[in-house]
């Protein structure tokens, strides 16, 4: 017998190994080396979380009790995957386009971004998943107890369950909520799951091979034993065969964890094509040896042995401790991977559809007030994960890990399957409405609870025996196990049949009888026409929404770097420079999708609605859009795409023309500026030279006037130096003296030379400045001095303050100089880097207005960029430099 200590030791090593894999995958993916992790193979393996401990251990038990019927659990998903072209491809395409984060988000988004629907689906998912998590905890404790038999039992089973739940919570929080990814993809988790998928497959195959060729006498012998075993007495039930196949197919599509790995984590549509054959193959291999193990187990092991544990007890009875250990790890992998993904999927749903909407409502004005929405979302996800695992643990404790758990797999499946009619309706039927969806879901949920969930706890636990025997209010046709007086059906088939039927009926009837809201119609067209190219129907009208405000809000939600990226890309697409695109309807829609990735569709819509209120989305506008027929819409979409292209081209041409005109004007202005800058000092020099020649001049005045001449000469020299510097830089003839230097030293040096600390308070983040960069330190110092002196000159508030913020990414480094003054007018933001451009009174500047132009040239010679950063209250300049 294997010692329990060894077993726990090996399990801990295995867990540590999984942590290592996940950690390493996250690192690789951060460093941009994660390409190979997004392969179809990893994608397929991640789908294997469909095979939980219920299938790993339970399939053999299922086969021992009901023969070939266990196969239905695998045949359903096989059909769904082989038919990927029809449903899965559509789901993935829609989820990509609409930045869907979960199945609750899918339905909420489809039916007019309804917060209510999202919340309802979330609750259904939690109710349906909690027993399933309890089942996984139970399988871990039961499998450990097999090894503990006959030894001193140090760990009670509740302890094991508790520690397992806690460990899973830690893993999920560390790798599932590390960052708020716009795409909700988690490379660490997916990688760990892929590893677990291989472990469980190998374990089951190893046990199978051992049973067939080690315990039995090969394939022929096993086939003979099958026909001789009690399993061959099994008779197929048409209802159960069809019902269970349907149920497993439905659950495969609707389970929150399956939706997470299959749709949300999908990085490329083509991976589905590979998974369409590879995953059925995985399922085939997983079930290949189930019947042989069941048959041999029934044959060899003493009568009354639990067939759910044959996978473990068969190797143990043959003293194959290593194999038993592998089998245990396989079961452990099945249980843990399911719990981890389920917890991630559910926590996303809870935070996006329950916590954030409530939080936003509680804050009254929603997104328009400052505050970090990101941290709220992350914290709520972490707490949700702990909550979900606590619920699972409590369910396990309360149900006592008894026989009631055995049928839990199917009960959960049936509960989750209630989402199917609404989901399919949502992606295929344009007439489906929110009212219909709510009616269908609630109806399905009620019928499922009444006919399956509540009775599953046994009579007198949640509902009375009286009710089971005579129906609600004594009405025979309302008996939970024989609705409408139809008796003799298998209970599972009965419950699935009625719940799905009434669900679909309510959904269709509700949809036909109700009128969709304008937003619903728009979303319906988006979802149904997922495969038509071209720009989508418009959700937003062009409004006076200020792009700068939007940027401010987006930064708080998806983080500064990502928001700036999104805005810059959008601006470029519109043919504009800088960070502020025009708030066109298309841009608002892109932005809304970006935000939806973090906080869910309904919330994102509400936030943007608040920002754009007054200037956007009147009901009439939406009606006008939605009332168009599909053909007109498609036609206008095509026209729109073309006219959009023309607009962009025209804008580019106009910009180019403007630029040329401006350049010509600038050239004239430049010459006259130079003339002015040269002649002014020369005027003083000439005037005083003439004065000095006067023999009558008082001796005391001579040195004074000579000094003026000297000062003005220096001014001339400085100007000429600047001009030459600029010309050399502009022509790229500059020779840079590149060497490694510390950013901190350069900033220190600049601060000392600019003597900036005396006139303005400088706040630096000392901790982040320890960066060694390959640059020309003298040139970079020159740039920093210039920016610091600018802040001193132009920041006119009682307590001037300059923040210098250093940010590091693997590929670039940025240094922001942000003061608390009035900033630069929007009109001048484009001009300040031009020669002789001064945003205000020129005497104050003291120089010729070449400083920023020189800065720009130096930075571009160093391979970086300098630009004005809008939306920071004061004047803000950002320098970004490449790293190595």
């Amino acid at each position, binding site marked *: 017998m294997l010692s329990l200590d060894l077993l726990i030791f090996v399990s801990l090593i295995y867990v540590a190994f999984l942590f290592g894999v996940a950690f390493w995958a996250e690192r690789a993916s951060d460093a941009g080396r994660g390409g190979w992790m997004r392969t179809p193979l990893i994608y397929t393996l991640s789908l294997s979380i469909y095979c939980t401990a219920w299938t790993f251990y339970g399939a053999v038990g299922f086969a021992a009790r009901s023969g070939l019927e266990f196969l239905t659990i695998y*045949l359903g998903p096989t059909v769904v995957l*082989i038919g990927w*072209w029809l449903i899965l491809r559509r789901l993935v395409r829609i989820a990509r386009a609409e930045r869907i984060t979960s199945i609750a988000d899918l339905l909420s988004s489809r039916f007019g971004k309804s917060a209510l629907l999202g919340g309802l689906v979330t609750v259904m998912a939690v109710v349906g998943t909690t027993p399933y998590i309890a089942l996984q905890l139970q399988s871990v404790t039961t499998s450990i107890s097999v090894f503990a038999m006959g030894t001193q039992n140090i760990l009670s089973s509740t302890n094991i369950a508790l520690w397992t739940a806690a460990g899973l919570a830690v893993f999920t929080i560390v790798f599932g909520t590390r960052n708020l990814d716009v795409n909700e993809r988690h490379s660490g988790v997916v990688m760990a799951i892929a590893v677990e998928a291989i472990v469980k497959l190998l374990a089951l195959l190893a046990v199978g091979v051992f049973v067939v060729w080690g315990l039995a006498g090969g394939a022929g012998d096993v086939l003979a034993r099958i*026909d001789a075993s009690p399993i061959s007495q099994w008779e197929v039930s048409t209802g159960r065969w069809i019902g269970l*196949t349907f149920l497993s197919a439905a659950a495969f599509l609707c389970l929150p964890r399956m939706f997470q790995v299959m749709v949300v984590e999908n990085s490329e549509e083509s991976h589905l094509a590979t998974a369409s054959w590879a995953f059925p193959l995985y399922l085939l291999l997983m079930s290949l040896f189930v019947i042989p193990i069941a048959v041999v187990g029934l044959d060899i092991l003493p009568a009354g042995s639990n067939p759910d544990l044959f996978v473990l007890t068969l190797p143990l009875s043959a003293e194959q401790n290593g194999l038993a250990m592998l089998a245990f790890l396989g079961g452990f992998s099945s249980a843990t991977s399911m719990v981890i993904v389920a917890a991630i999927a559910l926590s996303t749903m809870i935070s996006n559809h329950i916590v954030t909407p409530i939080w936003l409502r509680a804050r009254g004005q929603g997104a328009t007030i400052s505050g970090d929405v990101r941290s709220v979302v992350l914290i709520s996800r972490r707490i949700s994960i702990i909550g979900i695992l606590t619920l699972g643990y409590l369910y396990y404790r309360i149900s006592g890990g008894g026989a009631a758990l055995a049928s839990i797999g199917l009960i959960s499946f049936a509960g989750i399957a209630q989402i199917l009619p609404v989901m399919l309706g949502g992606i295929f039927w344009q007439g489906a409405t929110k009212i219909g969806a709510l009616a269908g879901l609630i109806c399905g949920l009620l019928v499922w609870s009444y006919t399956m969930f509540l009775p599953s706890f046994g009579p007198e636990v949640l509902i009375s025996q009286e009710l089971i025997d005579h129906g609600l209010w004594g009405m025979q046709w309302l008996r939970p196990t024989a609705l409408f007086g139809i008796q003799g059906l298998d209970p599972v088939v009965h419950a699935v049949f009625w719940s799905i039927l009434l669900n679909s009926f309510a959904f269709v009837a509700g949809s036909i009888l109700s009128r969709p809201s304008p937003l619903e119609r728009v979303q319906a067209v988006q979802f149904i026409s997922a495969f038509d190219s071209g720009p989508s129907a418009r959700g937003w009208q062009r409004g006076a929404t200020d792009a700068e405000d939007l940027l401010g809000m987006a930064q708080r939600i998806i983080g500064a770097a990502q928001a700036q990226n999104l805005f810059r890309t959008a601006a470029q697409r519109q043919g504009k420079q800088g960070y502020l695109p025009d708030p066109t309807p298309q841009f608002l829609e892109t932005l809304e999708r970006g935000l939806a990735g973090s906080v869910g569709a309904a919330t994102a819509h509400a936030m943007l609605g608040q920002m754009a209120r007054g200037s956007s989305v009147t009901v009439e506008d939406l009606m006008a859009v939605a009332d168009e027929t599909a053909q007109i819409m498609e036609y206008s979409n095509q026209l729109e795409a073309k006219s959009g292209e023309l607009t962009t081209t025209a804008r580019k041409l106009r910009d180019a023309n403007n630029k040329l005109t401006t350049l010509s004007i600038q050239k004239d202005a430049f010459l006259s500026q130079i003339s002015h800058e040269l002649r002014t000092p020369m005027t003083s020099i000439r005037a005083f030279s003439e004065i000095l020649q006067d023999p009558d001049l008082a001796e005391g005045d001579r040195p004074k006037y000579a000094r003026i001449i000297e000062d003005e000469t220096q001014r001339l020299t400085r100007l000429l130096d600047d001009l030459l510097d600029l010309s050399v830089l502009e022509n790229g003839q500059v020779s840079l003296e590149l060497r490694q230097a510390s950013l901190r030293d350069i900033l220190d040096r600049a601060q000392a030379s600019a003597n900036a600390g005396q006139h303005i308070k400088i706040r630096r983040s000392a901790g982040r400045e320890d960066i060694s960069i390959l640059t020309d330190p003298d040139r970079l110092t020159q740039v920093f001095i210039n920016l610091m002196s600018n802040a001193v000159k132009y920041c006119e508030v009682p307590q001037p303050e300059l923040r210098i913020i250093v940010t590091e990414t693997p590929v670039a480094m940025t240094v922001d100089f942000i003061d608390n003054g009035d900033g630069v007018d929007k009109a001048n933001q484009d001009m300040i880097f031009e020669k002789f451009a001064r945003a205000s009174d020129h005497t104050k500047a003291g120089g010729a207005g070449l400083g920023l132009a020189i800065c720009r040239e130096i930075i571009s010679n160093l391979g970086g960029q300098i630009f004005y950063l809008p939306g920071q209250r004061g004047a803000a300049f950002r320098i970004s430099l490449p790293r190595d």
Partner: protein
Amino acid sequence: MIGKRDQTMKRAANAARGQRLTDSALILPCVGMILFLLPIMWLRSSEVAPAAGIATSTALIYLFVVWAGLICCALGLALLIKRFGVGRS
């Protein structure tokens, strides 16, 4: 002129092949479903005359063979769809 005609022919052939592949992709799951539901009928027959029923081992082998066949078809279809880039917009 000929080049242009060739191109048109090629495009038409491509479209037809795309249509055939799309149709196959939709028909395959239906075929699978029907084949998977077949055991209901013969296993039922064992009730009427036990001797005429089909042995469980045979049913098992049938199901796995169908399953493997479907996987092969799906594999072939996936390769063709990827190769010809069907369904890409």
